[in-house]
């Protein structure tokens, strides 16, 4: 039998693992972070702080451990995700350390480093346990129920905890946790699984009115339910950020699944309508709008809860930073209440200026780009929707908080992913990145080669 040695490799560029590039970028990110530490010390008291090497080394050990896990369990994963996240997490650590130096209560770089370590552990655990992300598709409705449960948890009598007027914490013993962070991800998984099953009817049924395709009225069900849910979060938990985040992500995923502009229009109209109505009916939502529209008003500025002092101080800080910033360690982050969590972007804007803030936003944009690229390269609709949804969740969260701090939209209490102090968010975001890494590994792995050399198969006869 003639052998059929076959065709030379097709002339298409295969994706490469790019391990070398990943390692170099990872080392680069850690060097940047250590440079930032040193720069903070030089800015504050003219000497390199003793923490530079301990923190830097701690971060390096953690991240190279994460790299090891990634190289073993997801070798084809995207080479940029881990270095980019490392940079953000490291810069966050530096800024929290810097704010801690000013003596603001609540900022603790050691705590944040500990949470980072836990985050890396969760990242590794997710990669090791979750061999194939498509198992999540089977858990669609479980995830939906879990997401709902996590969302309403803070409202439960014993474990719920009211902090600064928002009902978003649970307290178990000494530990406090924001379950909404995890709920967001569970809901994205649920939306992805649900939309894969239902997207055809949502995309095709309906009729054309003027220039947009309107869906049928009875297909509005899921949108209305999610809308009600997000309004419930807004009203009962006074958490405008999570509400906007969940609803916006759902609308974006609906758009990804159906390519129908009318869903986006319907979503925007519903949310604006709901928010305006809530603003009329509930005081705390109204406060947010007032502060947003007129932060300079002395009456709002000096208000005890939900006043505009924080917003104004953030704007002042970014203003004094200007284009090039005041330099690390030379700003006045102490003036901004909660500068280490919600307002860390304002501190970045003050000390690194517009130039540095843009660089940080570019890093976010690159992470999102890698996620969307994963969605494009993915082979099945569930992966496409999940990767697209998670990337959008990250982008949308950055938009909401940065937009709030810069007074583009009403301020909402959301953390800046990876930068802000806060364990719940950090853990969740590391798991989110692990999911993206898992999916990019699946998407970039070359498809199994068809067996071509049957001619070489030897048949033994007895």
């Amino acid at each position: 039998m003639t052998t059929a040695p076959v065709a030379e490799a097709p002339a298409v560029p295969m994706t490469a693992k790019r391990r070398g590039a990943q390692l170099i970028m990872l080392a680069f990110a850690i060097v940047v972070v250590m440079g930032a530490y040193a720069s903070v010390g030089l800015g504050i008291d003219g000497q390199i702080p003793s923490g530079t090497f301990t923190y830097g080394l701690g971060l390096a050990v953690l991240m190279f451990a994460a790299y090891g896990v990634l190289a073993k369990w997801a070798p084809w994963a995207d080479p940029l995700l881990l270095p980019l996240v490392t940079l953000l997490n490291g810069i966050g650590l530096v800024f929290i350390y810097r704010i801690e130096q000013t003596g603001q209560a609540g900022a603790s770089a050691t705590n944040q480093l500990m949470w980072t370590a836990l985050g890396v552990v969760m990242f590794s655990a997710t990669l090791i346990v979750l061999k194939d992300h498509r198992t999540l598709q089977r858990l669609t409705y479980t995830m939906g129920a879990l997401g709902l449960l996590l969302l309403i948890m803070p409202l439960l009598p014993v474990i719920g905890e009211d902090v600064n007027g928002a009902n978003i914490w649970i307290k178990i013993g000494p530990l406090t946790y924001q379950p909404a962070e995890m709920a967001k991800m569970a809901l994205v998984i649920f939306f992805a699984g649900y939309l894969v099953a239902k997207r055809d009817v949502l995309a095709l049924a309906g009729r054309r009115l003027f220039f947009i395709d309107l869906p049928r009225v009875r297909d509005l069900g899921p949108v209305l339910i999610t809308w009600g849910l997000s309004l419930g979060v807004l009203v009962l938990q006074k958490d405008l950020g999570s509400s906007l985040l969940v609803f916006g992500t759902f609308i974006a995923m609906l758009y990804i699944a159906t390519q129908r502009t009318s869903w986006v229009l319907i979503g925007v109209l519903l949310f604006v309508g709901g928010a305006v109505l809530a603003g009329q009916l509930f005081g705390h939502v109204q406060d947010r709008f007032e502060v947003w529209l007129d932060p300079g008003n002395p009456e709002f500025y000096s208000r005890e809860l939900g006043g505009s002092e924080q917003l104004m101080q953030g704007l002042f800080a970014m203003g004094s930073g200007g284009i090039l910033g005041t330099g690390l360690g030379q700003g006045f982050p102490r003036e901004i209440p909660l500068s280490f969590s919600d307002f860390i972007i304002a501190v970045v804007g003050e000390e690194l200026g517009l130039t540095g803030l843009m660089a940080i936003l570019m890093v976010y944009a690159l992470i999102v780009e890698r996620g969307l690229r994963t969605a494009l390269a993915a082979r099945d609709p569930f992966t496409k929707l999940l990767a697209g949804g998670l990337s959008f969740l990250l982008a949308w969260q950055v938009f909401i908080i940065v937009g709030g701090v810069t007074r583009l939209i009403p301020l909402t209490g959301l953390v800046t992913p990876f930068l802000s102090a806060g364990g719940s968010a950090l853990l969740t975001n590391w798991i989110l990145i692990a999911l993206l890494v898992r999916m990019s590994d699946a998407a970039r792995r070359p498809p199994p080669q068809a067996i071509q050399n049957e001619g070489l198969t030897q048949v033994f006869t007895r």
Partner: protein
Amino acid sequence: MSELALLLIRLAFLAVLWFFVIAAVGVIRTDLFGPRTAPSANPRKLPTKPAKNIPAKPKRGEPRQMVVTGGPLQGTIINLTEQPITIGRATDSTLVLSDDYASSRHAQLFPQDGQWIVEDLGSTNGTYLDRSKVTRPTPVPLGTPIRIGKTVIELRK
């Protein structure tokens, strides 16, 4: 620490931060601009320009052209050379299909011992030679339709 030194440190740090961003973009530049090598990375233009390097005159009975006889790209002609032809939705395929039923790397055609062989590259919806599904590399007779999604192609002299 003097003012000047602090200023220089500040500018240097911003420069390093941006250098990091640019380096990151450099890692993924292939996404944005395509691979640096392989100037023929855009084989879509092949149908319009005549292949200059037809090696030797093909022997009698050997196909010289691949013609698209059905589907949106009907009428496209690709001259056969010694190079394999890839078909699919991927932009670097020789024949780029915009068809929901085609996979990104759907099938390829390659010459071997004077024959052209069609091979399905693990596509979702399959490749059909005449009426039968292609499960292994199969020689393509002249004038036999190969169906990929909505597209039909055949080899001609």
